[in-house]
């Protein structure tokens, strides 16, 4: 005989403002099998949970329905409370009367009626719930970190320093990511390379870290604790073992006019190259697209120049397979293509550049060795206009969100410029100054007050060339006047956007992403470093725009999540898995084909003499992820899914 306890939460007034909780409790109390039906202000709070436990013990409840917020919010909380009171946690179900009812409806009567339907149907379901036990699965204690920027490096080092194995995959020839491209970093103005390169070297030399550069993750199968990952090692045409990184090949390469990706097109590189002087590993790769030999079949000068024969033009892409327990995704961002702003002339006028290009100009190891020079004529600009929000917070042409770092780096650019060019003048067009962060506001104030940078609150409408100048027309909204500035250079504070292949990549590894292509966290506030897929964590700008401290913090947080996962030999998994009734199974194998996880095997049923009686389907609960696709396929209704059984769903529908 079912004895169901129903606990109706007011959620302060979040629910009770639209749902008559007293009336609801009274209605549900009448429902067959309901032993307790009560309402309370906050069931998720301690006294609330205690009252549920008390009711379970006193009334010997066989099942619990908490009518409250979404199960995605507090299902775990209430299941735990039930377990503490001695009730199997899977005998607890949540009726979502907040997100799906009180928050979205205005009519109190109709909302109350709907809440009653929702609750009743969950009562009917819970009557047919089964006592389930968590499934134990082994954990492979090896982490995969995808992306070798500052976030990836940090995550890899944190995990490795705790004694666990890490595979660090970077698709470029070197570690470093965007941070390696930066000159000085706000708000302390310490040199980016000076703080990053030691960490790159540490990661590369760490005994627990296996570094795979020029490599891409092409597939991820499996599940938390047991991922199977396939990585493509792109052909470098340079033997990593023997190459000493002397650089002779680079010096001899006849193709030297290739626009450098690392220098954002401001500098040049050879066809055989390392992205930058401090690359890790400091071993070159041949860019097949621009190499003379690959284009014309003749050249091989690099091969002749190499004294240890490390160059091999016959090298092929290779694929390696990895067994992985947890994954940290730190694939970073790209800067938005500013060609969307035709009126700013990016791409048309060489002296209109992006913030990242300015970083390369200001960098001591950059193409101009740290001198601020115009790309067009190599002269020192005496007047620079910076345009903030060139892409961010602009739903019409750019992106709706704030890229978060542009206010700070623009202030930094203007400051660096005033330090390098003492008679230079800079103007910054801005919408707001967003300088929230430790030492950030002080930094922007310094830019304005000590370095005399002129901030103009308003947008720029047009940039056009006049003689050797760039004329910038904008508006100063504080003065209410249009302004025209004759500048020598214009720097756009370009929006941070997801990597061009972010959505494709998310599909490859099976995580969710938002409308832009940033990867979704499991919960914005409470689970900000977990992806929607168990065992896959997020770090850095692949999740949202971030500065370096935030990226590093998130990387360390992800690493701690990975380490927590690796702290046990086995992992408890939700017992929501399929099972097969072998007596009724017709052995048609449709389920075997339909299963996305190859979790269903063909099984022979033999008699005592070993003679085959029949062949049936058999679900491997370790591999089953609980989607239920097989159950729906099964014509004879032999397959079923724990937690969402045919009986439960039937009852749920009939309870509506």
């Amino acid at each position, binding site marked *: 005989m079912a004895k169901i306890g129903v606990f109706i939460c007011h959620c302060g007034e979040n629910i009770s403002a639209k749902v008559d909780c007293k009336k609801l409790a009274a209605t549900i109390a009448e429902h067959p099998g309901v032993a307790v039906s009560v309402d309370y202000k906050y069931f998720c709070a301690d006294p609330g949970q205690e009252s549920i436990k008390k009711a379970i013990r006193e009334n010997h409840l066989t099942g619990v329905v908490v009518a409250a917020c979404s199960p995605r919010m507090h299902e775990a909380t209430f299941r735990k409370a039930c377990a503490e009171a001695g009730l199997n946690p899977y005998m607890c179900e949540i009726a979502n009367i907040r997100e799906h009812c009180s928050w979205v409806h205005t009519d109190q009567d109709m909302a109350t009626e709907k809440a009653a339907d929702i609750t009743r149907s969950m009562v009917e379901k819970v009557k047919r719930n089964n006592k389930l036990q968590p499934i134990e699965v082994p954990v492979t204690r090896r982490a995969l970190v995808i992306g070798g920027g500052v976030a990836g490096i940090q995550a890899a080092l944190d995990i490795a320093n705790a004694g666990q194995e890490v595979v660090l995959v970077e698709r470029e020839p070197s570690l470093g990511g965007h941070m390696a491209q930066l000159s000085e970093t706000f708000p302390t103005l310490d040199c980016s390379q000076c703080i990053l390169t030691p960490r790159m070297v540490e990661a590369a030399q760490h005994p627990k870290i296996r570094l795979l550069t020029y490599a891409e993750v092409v597939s991820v199968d499996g599940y938390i604790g047991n991922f199977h990952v396939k990585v493509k090692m792109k052909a470098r045409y340079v033997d990593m073992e023997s190459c000493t990184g002397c650089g002779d090949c680079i010096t001899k390469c006849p193709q030297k006019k290739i626009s450098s990706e690392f220098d954002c097109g401001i500098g040049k590189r050879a066809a055989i190259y390392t992205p930058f002087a401090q690359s890790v590993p400091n071993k070159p790769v041949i860019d097949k697209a621009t190499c003379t030999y690959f284009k014309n079949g003749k050249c091989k000068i690099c091969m002749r120049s190499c004294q240890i024969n490390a160059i091999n033009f016959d090298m092929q892409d290779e694929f390696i397979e990895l067994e992985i327990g947890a994954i940290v995704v730190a694939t970073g961002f790209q800067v938005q293509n500013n060609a969307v702003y035709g009126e700013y002339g990016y791409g048309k006028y060489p002296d209109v550049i992006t913030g990242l290009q300015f970083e390369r100009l200001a960098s001591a190891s950059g193409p101009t060795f740290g001198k601020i020079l115009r790309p067009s004529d190599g002269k020192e600009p005496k007047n620079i206009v910076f345009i903030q929000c060139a892409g961010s917070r602009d739903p019409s042409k750019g992106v709706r969100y704030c890229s978060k770092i542009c206010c700070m780096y623009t202030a930094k650019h203007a400051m660096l410029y005033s330090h390098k060019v003492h008679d230079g003048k800079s103007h910054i067009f801005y919408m707001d100054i967003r300088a929230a962060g430790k030492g950030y506001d002080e930094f922007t104030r310094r830019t304005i007050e000590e370095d005399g940078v002129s901030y103009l609150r308003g947008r720029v409408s047009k940039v056009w060339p006049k003689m050797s100048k760039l004329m910038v027309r904008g508006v100063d909204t504080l003065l209410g006047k249009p302004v025209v500035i004759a500048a020598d250079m214009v720097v756009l504070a370009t929006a941070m956007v997801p990597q061009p292949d972010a959505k494709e990549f998310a599909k490859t590894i099976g995580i969710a992403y938002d409308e832009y292509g940033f990867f979704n966290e499991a919960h914005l506030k409470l689970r900000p470093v977990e992806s929607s897929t168990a065992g896959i964590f997020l770090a850095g700008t692949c999740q949202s725009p971030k500065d370096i401290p935030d990226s590093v913090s998130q990387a360390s947080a992800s690493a701690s999540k990975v380490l927590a996962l690796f702290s046990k030999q086995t992992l408890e998994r939700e017992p929501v898995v399929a099972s097969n009734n072998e007596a009724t199974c017709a052995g048609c194998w449709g389920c075997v*084909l339909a299963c996305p996880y190859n979790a269903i095997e063909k099984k022979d049923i033999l008699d005592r003499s070993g003679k085959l009686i029949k062949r049936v389907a058999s679900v491997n609960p370790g591999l089953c992820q609980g989607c239920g696709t097989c159950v729906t396929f099964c014509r004879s209704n032999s397959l079923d899914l724990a937690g969402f059984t045919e009986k439960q769903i039937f009852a749920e529908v009939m309870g509506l």
Partner: protein
Amino acid sequence: MTIQETYKARVKKLLASGTVKMVIGYKPGTTADRRRPHFIRTPEEADQLVLDSACITNLSGYLLSEGLLSDEKAVAIFLKPDGIRSINILAAEAQLNSEQILILGFDSNDNQVTALEGEKVEEFTTLIESIKEQAPEALKNPLLEQIEGMTPKERFAFWQGEFSRCIKCYACRQACPMCYCRRCIVDCNQPQWVNTSSHTLGNFEWNIVRAFHLSGRCVGCGNCDRACPVNIPLRLINAKMAQEVLGAFDHFSGMSHTQEPVLASFKKDDSETFIL
């Protein structure tokens, strides 16, 4: 020699030589125009064999009789092209090993019975491909088109009329070679997905489920239709489903013994114009 006599001789030879342990064919039925299945184990029993245009039942379902194929000995069976397609589906759904089946193929048109070349199911592939070519035309049916032309209300009323006669005898299920489940969903009472009393609602549900389970699997042999004691045009629904899977997924049931079931497979670019 008539085809019947040719085949009779062949059957005797197959049994006498021990090539097959049994031949499933036809013998005279209770009335002159009816035939019944004939399970021939000895050459002598073959004398009763009949092969004429009245032999219309798809016999393939008998192959699944408990234990018949478990000794892995060959069985020969008289099949028309639709029955040959059934063998492919049953093999694709792991119900039998097509290697074990020797097909005595025939077809009948205008009361004329003709022999089909081949013994193994793969040998009929070209024939089945040509049937697929003609399928869009062959599946057309005036009554089906008439139903499609109705308003949903009229269609509902039409089927309500038909299904109200259903007595849930499950003769359609029994006659169908594809209904081989050990336990049919309608016999499942935990939960009771289909109302078992023979009121129209339950009849509706039963017939919808039946048609759904046969979607992409029915070969249109008509066994169900002929078995129905209250003459519900069951074949119409099956034909409609066959049209649907052919049009939407280019799936024609029983093309080969390795064909993937249409509802256990998918293509990433399957049509989805109906999804909001």
